[in-house]
């Protein structure tokens, strides 16, 4: 993409020209403060915008960084080289400490826990006695000194701060513009589907939380140096609210948003002096307006404007490369289910089901509404845990594993309703699944650049190969939301195959498809089975299953009432009875 890069260079150039040529000492200070805010917002975007978790602890991390710098600098005379890394490490350590119990909580609990953390930290520092200077804080911070060299206030300090900001933006952009950013998008929009393609949501959220803490601490440290003084204000709610407002107004998922939001909300109060003392009131009104009218923030609005003005840039033709499924003859039976049971409230959704499946088999699963078909699929794929019973996959017990772990072991699925992220390009949606299987998602992969360049091209090529195999190659560069149902179904199957599964569970794949598409789909599924892939097809459409499945299982009220070939099942009186009701009314 050339436009963002061009804009970034232009912005950097104007900043430099302004700072060197036009700004007074006071204005340089404001610009430096603005830089600290940009850094804080960049970090906050990772947990709030990308991971979609409402953290209210950003102010606490910021303040912690500020205080660590102040205490080490003013009390112990430590230099920048010592205090800065520690100002980052301590918030990260704190985040790591509380992350494990707190991140798995539902959103309002998570917000509460982080708010509580912030309050405790604030209390601790206000009551910290001489250590923290109590309610008055710590004055008289010496300037930045790196191994004896002093970085003076004014232009030198500004350059240091903005250099750190540039690095932070670079790092954040690397993380979120690449394939990991797509994984975050999936996690936000549809966490169940994300786990079904093997994305470890908990680990991604953990990384995002820790990174947000690190950025917050760095920002606080730099602001402490700029201001020369630190007070509990830095830890207070106002700091968090400012950060939140900047993030939402600027745009919570785009790097440019951090710059826009922070600069706007730093400079606007400066320019609009008559709003003196009412800055926060204006923030509140602006935040409300942004949430209602422009949820993607200024950066989002600009991006949409740009997309309207500039046609979509055609990527270089992606040459497809084939993806090899795992070889046949892995431990048989492939899937074994014994005495499986699961209750919801008063209803036994699954009341004792046995089933066995071999590689290359196509098993049909039918049954009336409420018979337990989707519950069975959820149990096998780990979205629900069984009350009783055992599920073995390739000889290994999987009923106590998480959904993403089961996906990684080789069980893929599609859902009844489309689980594709509407705004993401088809190729990218499948590439994310490839990346998940190749384990190149997450911070480590980003830092080792395992998710870009030649690696990314390989993922894209494999994704393209899958799309072509499923007959969806032509739509690879379109957004998922634009697809008609038949193609969307095919893309979902391609994405599921990206996991290199041994077992694929399809939930009503023929629903909403035209008759002609049924034959194509059945042909594709048969060829996949011929290569060794086992399929479980949940369907209502009996004619579709007739030509496809080797064996059919009929469920009713959570139990298997009949098994046999499709022809046998169709004539089975028990099956007729379960669908049509008994003869005796």
């Amino acid at each position, binding site marked *: 993409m050339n436009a963002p890069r061009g804009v970034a260079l232009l912005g950097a150039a104007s900043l430099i020209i302004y700072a060197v040529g036009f700004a007074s000492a006071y204005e340089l200070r404001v610009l430096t403060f603005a830089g600290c805010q940009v850094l804080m917002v960049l970090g906050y975007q990772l947990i709030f915008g990308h991971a*979609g978790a*409402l953290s209210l602890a950003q102010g606490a991390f910021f303040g912690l960084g500020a205080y660590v710098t102040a205490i080490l600098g003013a009390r112990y005379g430590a230099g920048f080289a010592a205090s800065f890394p520690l100002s980052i490490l301590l918030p990260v350590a704190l985040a790591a400490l509380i992350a494990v*119990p707190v991140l798995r*909580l539902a*959103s*309002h*609990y998570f*917000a*509460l*826990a982080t*708010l*509580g953390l912030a*309050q*405790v930290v604030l*209390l*601790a520092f206000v*009551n910290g006695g001489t250590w923290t200077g109590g309610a008055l804080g710590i004055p008289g911070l010496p300037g930045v000194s790196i191994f004896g060299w002093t970085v003076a206030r004014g232009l030198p300090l500004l350059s240091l701060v903005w250099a750190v900001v540039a690095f932070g933006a670079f790092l954040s952009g690397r993380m979120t513009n690449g394939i990991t950013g797509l994984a975050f998008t999936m996690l936000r929009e549809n966490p169940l589907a994300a786990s079904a393609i093997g994305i470890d949501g908990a680990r991604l959220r953990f990384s995002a939380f820790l990174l947000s803490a690190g950025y917050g601490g760095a920002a606080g440290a730099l602001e402490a140096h700029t201001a020369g003084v630190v007070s509990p204000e830095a830890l207070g*709610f106002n700091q968090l*609210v400012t950060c*939140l*407002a900047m993030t*939402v107004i600027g745009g919570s998922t785009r790097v440019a948003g951090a710059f826009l939001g922070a600069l706007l909300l730093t400079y606007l109060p400066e320019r609009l002096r008559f709003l003196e*003392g*009412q800055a*926060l*009131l204006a*923030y*509140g*009104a602006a*935040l*409300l307006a942004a*949430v*209602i009218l422009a*949820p993607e923030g200024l950066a989002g609005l600009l991006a949409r404007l740009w997309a309207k003005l500039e046609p979509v840039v055609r990527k270089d033709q992606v040459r497809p490369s084939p993806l090899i499924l795992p070889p046949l003859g892995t431990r048989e039976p492939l899937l074994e289910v014994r005495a499986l049971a699961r209750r*919801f*409230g*008063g209803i036994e959704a699954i009341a004792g089901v046995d089933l066995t499946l071999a590689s290359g088999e196509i098993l049909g699963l039918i049954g009336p509404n409420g018979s337990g078909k989707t519950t069975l699929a959820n149990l096998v794929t780990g979205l629900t845990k069984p009350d009783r019973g055992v599920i073995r996959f390739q000889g290994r017990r999987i009923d106590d594993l998480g959904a993403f772990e089961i996906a990684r072991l080789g069980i893929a699925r599609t859902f009844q309703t489309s689980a594709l992220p509407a705004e993401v390009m088809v190729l990218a949606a499948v590439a994310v699944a490839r990346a998940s299987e190749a384990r190149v998602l997450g911070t480590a992969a980003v830092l080792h650049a395992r998710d870009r360049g030649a690696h990314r091209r390989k993922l894209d090529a494999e994704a393209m190969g899958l799309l072509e195999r499923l007959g969806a190659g032509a739509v690879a560069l379109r957004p998922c939301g634009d697809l008609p149902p038949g193609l969307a179904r095919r893309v979902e199957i391609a994405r599921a195959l990206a996991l290199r599964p041994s077992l694929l569970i399809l939930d009503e794949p023929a629903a909403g498809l035209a008759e002609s598409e049924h034959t194509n789909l059945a042909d594709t599924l048969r060829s996949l089975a011929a290569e060794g892939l086992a399929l479980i097809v949940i369907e209502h459409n009996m004619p579709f299953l007739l030509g496809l499945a080797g064996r059919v299982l009929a469920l009713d009220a959570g139990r298997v009432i009949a098994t046999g070939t499709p022809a046998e099942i169709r004539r089975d009186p028990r099956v007729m009875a379960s669908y049509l009701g008994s003869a005796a009314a």
Partner: protein
Amino acid sequence: MITLAQLALNALSLGAAYALVALGFVLILNATGAVNFAQGDLVMAGGYLTAWFVVLLPLPGLVLLPLAMVATALLGLAALALAYFPLMRRPPSTVFVSTIAIGLILQNGAVRLFGPEPRVTPPVLGGGEVHWAGLTLSRQSISLIVVAAVLILGQRWLLARTRLGRQMRATAEDRTMAAALGIPVRAMIALTFALAAALAGAGGMLLGNQFFVTPTEGSALILKAYVAVVIGGWGSLEGAVAGALLVAAFETIVAALVSYTAAIALLYGVLVAILLLRPEGLFGEAAGRRA
């Protein structure tokens, strides 16, 4: 030297005021499914409005109380219109942010209108002390408990025994089904909001006599309401009251035994324990609640 009786009374009275805040919080939660971050700031607004009214119309506290409640209810309806109804089809997290924004506006609006100095609200039944059984107790503390009890019981009666209350409860339990039975869902949500805000306003006036009204008290209060509701049981009205009393007990009784900071740390310890061991809270929804 504070006696145990006075301590208990303080705890009960503080808890009663917190209960009003927490109750309003849960009412809105049940009716809309979203968290009202501005609940604490509505309390603050109620306090400021009362402090302002008493200067204009020097009426007795008991007469000012309904006025404060009505005024805050109107503010609550404005918040509903601005922060909830436009976002009804969006995920609850956006409402969280929009109510943070409303809270900001309320806070800074208060500073703009009333200045940053703390204010005092008039006592509801007169100040001073009462002597009873050899103890000296604050009249305001006692009145606070009585008034809060009356309001809480009144709210219970409204919901349990009146037609309106029945419709409000149905809307809170299943909004779509309520509509399918002819219940005017938006009106019921608005009523719930007004009721919750009125309770917040009462809380503001009651708290403002002994603890002063400050613009930033809302942030601390919302946190306490949140903690009370999580401990008591997310969505449970009785739980909100129980949780509020517990929070107050920690802030008064436990704080007197150890230190304030330690007591708060212990309270958060209890919170984390509940989140990990019994996430549905003390009175939380049992598993068999499916119809």
